[in-house]
């Protein structure tokens, strides 16, 4: 009788153990799914230079025509969700282009644009053309 009781106990323990194992696996799998879901994220940012924010710069997803113009304060929210290793190209007249790779869980970037060394000169035509 005692032996039978122990056997029932062992069976119950085995069942509980198996149940826990299944639950733990389930939890782990859920966590994996949750991680997959977070790889796509909305990215915002502010474009800057040595003079502060750069207004109206353009931010484009490399290899596509998907992009957005920054506002007057250099801020943008990229119109498409981005994933790890996507590359954004940031351009603005008067600055060197910059590429930025989305890494880890990045949701905010602050691209810094270098100045281009350009001496401004100017001579405009002041007479109508005789060539047309």
């Amino acid at each position, binding site marked *: 009788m005692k032996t039978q009781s122990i056997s029932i106990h062992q069976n119950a323990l085995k069942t509980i153990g198996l149940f826990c194992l299944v639950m733990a696996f389930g939890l782990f799998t859920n966590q994996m799914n949750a991680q997959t879901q977070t790889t796509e994220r909305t990215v915002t940012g502010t474009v800057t230079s040595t003079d502060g924010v750069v207004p109206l710069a353009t931010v484009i997803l490399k290899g596509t025509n998907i992009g957005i113009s920054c506002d007057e304060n250099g801020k943008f929210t990229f119109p498409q969700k981005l994933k790890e290793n996507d590359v954004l190209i940031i351009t603005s007249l008067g600055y060197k282009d910059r590429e930025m790779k989305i890494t880890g869980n990045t949701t905010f970037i602050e691209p810094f644009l270098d100045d281009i060394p350009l001496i401004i000169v*100017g001579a405009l035509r002041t007479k109508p053309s005789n060539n047309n």
Partner: protein
Amino acid sequence: MNRFILLVCFTFIVPLHAQRSDFNKIDFTKAEHIANRYKGEDLTNLPLLVHHLTSQLETDAERFKAIYYWVSHNISGNYDLMHTNERTRKKLKNDPEELQRWNHQFKKEVFTKLLSDKETLCTGYAYLIKVLSNLAGLECTIIHGYDLNNSAKSNKQNGPNHSWNAIKLNGKWYLCDATWSAGYTDMSNFLFEFEYDNTYFLMKPSEFVKTHKPLDEKWTLLPLSTEVHDSKKKL
């Protein structure tokens, strides 16, 4: 010996042929038509603008023409910027540090004006041509030098007063000046009038040099330029 003569001839002939007539067989109508279709587009998304202007064209010459034609028909000359620039450079010519500081600030002003109002002066035209061409995969450079049309302004003591472009098509460099192609400033009211002049598009170097003197002589693209001398020495 014959091979040597041939090489020397080739060195001289290549730059002489770098002119618009090289593309006589190309019909630029489609390029101009596309540029007209995108008239009024703004400059906030340059890669997209270049895609619109060039993606349907087959040759580099047509792609460049679409860019050049668009810039010449959409960007106005701004007399105030030119006048301010000229006056300040003259004033600060003996104070290089202050001139550099001022140029940095003025550069920002020039690009803001170009971006928001599509108005600029010659360096702005040349810069925009270069950026758009580079985005289309074309090699293009800005040339600084002297506008020989106005001898008073071409005073070397005041430094260069004009910028234009050289563009590489089919392995050869060509010259062009979008500032002068775009139009002119009416000096009675200082307002800009669009008046497209195609003569400055891939103009023959021997003609171009009559009105444009580059700081670096090799950019005349004439046979006696430094580059050709160097090539001769190598031979």
